């Protein structure tokens, strides 16, 4: 009798497992992405084609969710069901690099009839066990138990936007964090794994995914909001006494209001932010989350869509004020040193001097440890001086390197220096560089004068012969894009 029970139990479980597996494999597919990231050292071309595989999960009929990182710089995307080799060409429906999420749809409508959308579950609780689904390269999917260890503030690898991530304990983290769906015990989607370290797998939580989907379904995607403020903690009782903040008030000190903040003319430095909406904020920037306990107040922004009115309660000289503004979408391209240039690397060559924008993509050419290896003045500026500008069109322009040519003799050792001025004009973008180059010095024998940051010094190049030099350089270095070179039209 005992053995019969064990057999029946095992059979039922196998059946459940088998049918569950079949269910999963109707909702989760393997995605092959062919991508070509830019070559930051030669920005007129791209690097070798890279083939990568990920998992995508159907969230709506014909719509597959995947991490944005997976499809960055993509040139082609294909989907296949697990265990099935036939490929369905896909294209990008929507991508938001700020939260590292993207939606794909088939090129041909109805091509994913064999798939069913996955159910969306409720958010997880701390210590709740979920399943991390992997198998991007296998003939079947597999599950790894993943315990939700904590929620914490972090940034997507594709942006500097901060939001709350789930940190899962998984027995082996190696090889995970490549867009694996996270499912609860009932097989419902509750997160998307997008990164790992030796201890944890990091996942985008359901709230962010839900926000992203609903925003898309509204018809015109607004994005995630930003306040445009910088804060300091007020947990020092001495600081609170010094600033004369009553003991019964808790909140964070507003230390800076960024140029693109919707609160620019409404808030003041040293205002104390007490609440966002109805939630009170603690002195260390945390609030009491119903499900997760103490969580950073940034989590509250996920309750809003960009453009929504967000009410802030602040303390100013003992007065409590309610200040509202229509939030703006976070846009990393507004920053002086923006994130990855997913739409191409802006650059310009003059006489063999290769100028381009400083961005996170360029800094990452020094590898994962770029904060240690990249030129310290660039790293410093990225970490300490990187702010958005009102119009978002100011940049730091660097001289990447010099493409040796007789025209630039004497300067060929220069590389990785920040450009300040050209022909006496400040340069803060590639367009302003082009403009400055249109105004040579010394009319009789025109020259371009370049001034660099710190000890980069000043160098001078002739305009005469520049077209011929450009022709030589284009041929020598296989530069086929016409727009790479300066032309004085």
């Amino acid at each position, binding site marked *: 009798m005992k053995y019969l029970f064990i057999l029946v139990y095992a059979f039922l479980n196998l059946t459940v497992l088998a049918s569950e597996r079949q269910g999963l494999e109707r909702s989760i597919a393997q995605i092959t992405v062919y991508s070509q990231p830019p070559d930051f050292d030669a920005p007129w071309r791209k690097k070798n084609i890279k083939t990568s595989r990920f998992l995508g999960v159907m969230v709506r009929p014909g719509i597959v969710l995947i991490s944005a990182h997976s499809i960055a710089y993509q040139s082609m995307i294909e989907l296949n069901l697990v265990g099935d080799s036939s490929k369905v060409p896909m294209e990008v429906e929507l991508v938001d690099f700020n939260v590292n999420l993207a939606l794909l749809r088939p090129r041909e409508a109805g091509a994913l009839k064999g798939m069913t959308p996955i159910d969306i579950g409720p958010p997880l609780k701390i210590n709740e066990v979920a399943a991390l689904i992997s198998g991007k390269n296998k003939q079947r999917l597999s599950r790894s138990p993943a315990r939700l260890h904590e929620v914490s503030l972090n940034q997507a690898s594709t942006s500097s936007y901060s939001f709350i991530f789930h940190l899962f304990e998984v027995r082996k983290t190696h090889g995970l964090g490549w867009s694996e769906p996270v499912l609860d015990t009932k097989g419902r989607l509750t997160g998307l794994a997008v990164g790992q370290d030796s201890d944890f797998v990091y996942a985008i939580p359901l709230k962010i995914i839900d926000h992203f989907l609903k925003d898309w379904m509204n018809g015109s995607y607004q994005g995630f909001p930003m306040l445009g403020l910088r804060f300091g903690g007020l947990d*020092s009782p001495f600081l609170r006494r010094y600033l004369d903040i009553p003991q019964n008030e808790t909140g964070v000190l507003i230390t800076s209001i960024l140029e693109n903040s919707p609160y620019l003319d409404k808030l003041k430095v040293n205002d104390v932010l007490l609440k966002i909406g109805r939630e009170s904020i603690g002195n260390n920037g945390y609030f009491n989350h119903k499900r997760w306990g103490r969580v950073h107040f940034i989590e509250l922004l996920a309750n809003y869509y960009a453009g929504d009115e967000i009410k802030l309660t602040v303390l100013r000289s003992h007065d409590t004020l309610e200040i509202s503004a229509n939030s703006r979408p976070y846009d990393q391209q507004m920053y002086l040193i923006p994130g990855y240039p997913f739409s191409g690397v802006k650059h310009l060559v003059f006489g063999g001097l290769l100028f381009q924008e400083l961005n996170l993509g360029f800094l990452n050419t020094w590898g994962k440890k770029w904060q*240690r*290896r990249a030129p*310290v003045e660039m*790293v*410093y500026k990225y970490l300490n001086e990187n702010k958005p500008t009102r119009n978002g069109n100011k940049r730091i322009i660097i001289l990447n390197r010099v493409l040796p040519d007789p025209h630039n003799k*004497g300067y060929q050792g220069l590389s990785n220096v920040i450009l300040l001025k050209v022909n006496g004009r400040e340069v803060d973008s590639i367009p302003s560089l082009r403009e400055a180059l249109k105004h040579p010095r010394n009319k009789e024998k025109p020259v371009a004068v370049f001034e660099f940051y710190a*000890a980069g010094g000043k160098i001078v190049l002739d305009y005469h012969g520049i077209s011929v030099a450009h022709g030589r350089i284009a041929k020598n270095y296989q530069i086929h894009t016409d727009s790479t070179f300066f032309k004085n039209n």
Partner: protein
Amino acid sequence: MNHISENERLTCSLTTTSKWAHQAFRNILARMRVLFPLLLISVSAFGLDSAHLRRSVYKVNVVSQKPNFSQPWQLGRQSRGSGTGFYIGDGRILTNAHVVAGARYVTVQRDGDDHPTIVKIRYIAHDCDLAILEAESTDFFRDAAPLTFGGLPKLRRQVVTIGYPKGGEQISITEGIVSRISYRRYIHSGYHRHILVQVDSAINPGNSGGPVIQGKQVVGVAFQAHTGAENTGYIIPTPVVKRFLEDISDGKYDGHPDIGLMVLKGGLNNAAMRRYLHVEDDLGGVVVIFVASYTSTNGLIQKGDVLFEINHHPIGLDGKVIFEGERINFKAIFDLMQMGKKVVFSLLRKGKKLEVTVPVERSRRHHDLANIYPKFPRFDVFAGLIFSSLSRNYLKGWGANWYQDAPVHLRFIHWYSQILPRFKNVEELVVLSGRLPDPVNIEARRFEEAIVDEINGIPISKLEDIQAAIPKGDADFIQIKMWNHPVPIVMPRSDALKAHPDILKKYDVFPERWLK
């Protein structure tokens, strides 16, 4: 019989009848090939034999303690090391500064002696890695002949390095060839550049401070090895040694001057640059791209000047001059000058030729880009907050790869403070290097390694400013603002003043400041 001359008969006999003898002689000769040069050298060097050499070249044994940059009122652990020194007359032994840096006890011993002799460090020059030791009694040198100095060693000529490298107790002699003469950074300083000579003989630990001889004279002091290459060593050449000896002749070491200039080498190869700066075709030179505010060139040399001569040595487009038959960076000329002398630059400024005389003076700031070797680093402690002077040594607390591993903002300000308006003219960069935990300073934990900007509204330009600033400002609070931190450290004044002596006692801090 064929006619054979007398000579031929003899030759034939050596060749034919004494083949075995001839072969034996060749075998012996081959074995002597190794020994023969050494014997030759030991006999020919200075006209002294090896016994005399043994009386003049010594093993230097050192017990040292390095400063502790984390708890700067304490000394670090003791360690033992050894090097080489040699007699230069007047009761003086020349060796390297790095052999005796941080020394608490130094002895010298000659090969063949059965006991060491205590010596004192009379002069130490960390900027050029040289030091002078003096024995307690001049009897020690009674049989010693001072080694004499020659000029810059000749390229591609043989040199002999004499010393006491690890691996034995006896004097060791190795040969090499002078392979390169350049102007490069000395490791012991970490910042200062001087003429440097490369030899292809191994210079091993223990050789440091030993004489390097070419012909009959000392042409350098062995001091560095190339860790990435075999049989490559470096020596401090005699021009640098002679400069050091002349510097200390007045009883005080003034140090090497810092030219404080950065130039664009090779920039005048470009025709457009030459035209723009009005540089005639027959003129060489380099363009000045940066002038430090704290050196004597400031105010006299300008950015954009074209330097084409230094003390009437023409400067090439590569920034080099001819010095003692070799081409060397022009800065070496300035580097070899004594304090108080003058250097004449011939330069072009906006197309006009000028001669500018620059006095050779000490650098005007504490913040040193070089390694420092104090007994205690400069520091001050207040209410448990440890304020230190930012230095290369401080950054080396992050390990051998400090230039990558130290915090970004410290690395940045260490190199670029000269171009930051706030710090351009400070004498010293003050870091909150640590905290002796106490309730009064508990909130400062977030600010460790931050650079101090102001205390009570007073800008801080050196450690001495701290004690001057503390009494100022708000009656109830002491406010310490850190660079790039919008929120200050705030401490109740009365609590901080009360806690200060208690903290010193609790953590056994003595002295509570060192500002030498």
